[in-house]
């Protein structure tokens, strides 16, 4: 089955729906989050914008969207879980981190379980972690590889965090050994068919390049 394309917000009016929201921040950096719409509800966006800066807000056209391939019988369960996590974490305690912890959200409340000082998430691993908790594993994390250029990215993040969050930057500097899942690759993985989940790295990277092309084309 061919990989689908990103869609504008207007295409996601059928509920319930779950999608990876992706936007270009600067020429070398994208950002992603989760769009979800429960039956009868509005399209909402949940994303980790930065260290202890979780956002739960109305979905906007500043993002484009990679719809997660879910059957209509399954979408309500996943959208409902996304909504629970979104509502439970507006206290801004999810730290930024290079790790990809599993079982990091309370199954009952959706709240972040790991505190502010240890393991954290990126915008991309936030999306992966929430969906994984709902049984949707977008990428094959067990066979993901490190890339030398990702180390440059980690250093940029540490430098940027150091301006306002020196303690956190110091922590990340000491815990920088982690794989990177790029926002466009997470969005690209979502564009595959459900049967292809979890998407292997090479396919996610390819799909991520097409996501980048679409974002560049505006």
């Amino acid at each position: 089955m061919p990989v689908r394309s990103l869609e504008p917000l207007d295409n996601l009016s059928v509920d319930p729906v779950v999608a990876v929201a992706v936007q270009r921040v600067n020429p070398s950096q994208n950002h992603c989050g989760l769009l979800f719409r429960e039956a009868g509800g509005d399209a909402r966006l949940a994303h980790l914008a930065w260290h202890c800066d979780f956002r739960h807000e109305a979905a906007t056209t500043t993002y484009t969207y990679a719809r997660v391939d879910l059957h209509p019988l399954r979408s309500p369960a996943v959208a409902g879980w996304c909504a629970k996590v979104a509502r439970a974490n507006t206290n801004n305690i999810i730290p930024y981190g290079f790790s990809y912890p599993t079982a990091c959200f309370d199954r009952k409340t959706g709240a972040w379980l790991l505190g502010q000082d240890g393991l954290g998430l990126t915008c991309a691993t936030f999306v992966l972690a929430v969906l994984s908790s709902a049984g949707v594993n977008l990428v094959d994390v067990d066979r993901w590889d490190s890339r030398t250029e990702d180390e440059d990215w980690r250093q940029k993040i540490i430098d940027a965090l150091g301006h306002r969050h020196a303690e956190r930057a110091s922590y990340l500097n000491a815990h920088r050994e982690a794989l990177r899942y790029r926002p466009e690759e997470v969005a690209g993985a979502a564009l595959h068919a459900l049967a292809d989940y979890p998407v292997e790295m090479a396919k996610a990277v390819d799909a991520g390049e097409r996501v980048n092309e679409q974002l560049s084309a505006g």
Partner: protein
Amino acid sequence: MSTLAATQSDLVRSNAAPYAGYGAATTVRKFSGYEFGPGEAAWVRSVRQASARKSVPAAMADLYDAVDDLLRAGNFAAVDRGLAEVSLADLKPELWVALLTVTYAAKDRLRHRAAFAGEVQRALQQMSIEPESVLHGLL
């Protein structure tokens, strides 16, 4: 020992070593009423009633609350009993999937989950829906 007393004891004991997949239950939970009663498991009754009376999102929220309470408390037996007893005809199909979703992380502790999943697969086939197109990753 009554069934109720045994269940309460199980809840307390389970919090000494909470099930890792459901986070750290740091306090002893108060018994919340999802005990084994005569007949069907109480959580099945509440979810069945919610399925009949509420919207899918509201019924799903009730299902998540009921099952997660039990799983967090380590009361796998009560969840398992419900999985063995629940009738698909009493739940909206979206709730079949929700039940498989909420129990996925504990599937190795739930003896009757595989049989329930098999029932769901057969029911989907009878609806002319390819089970894998719905349940991929949940079995």
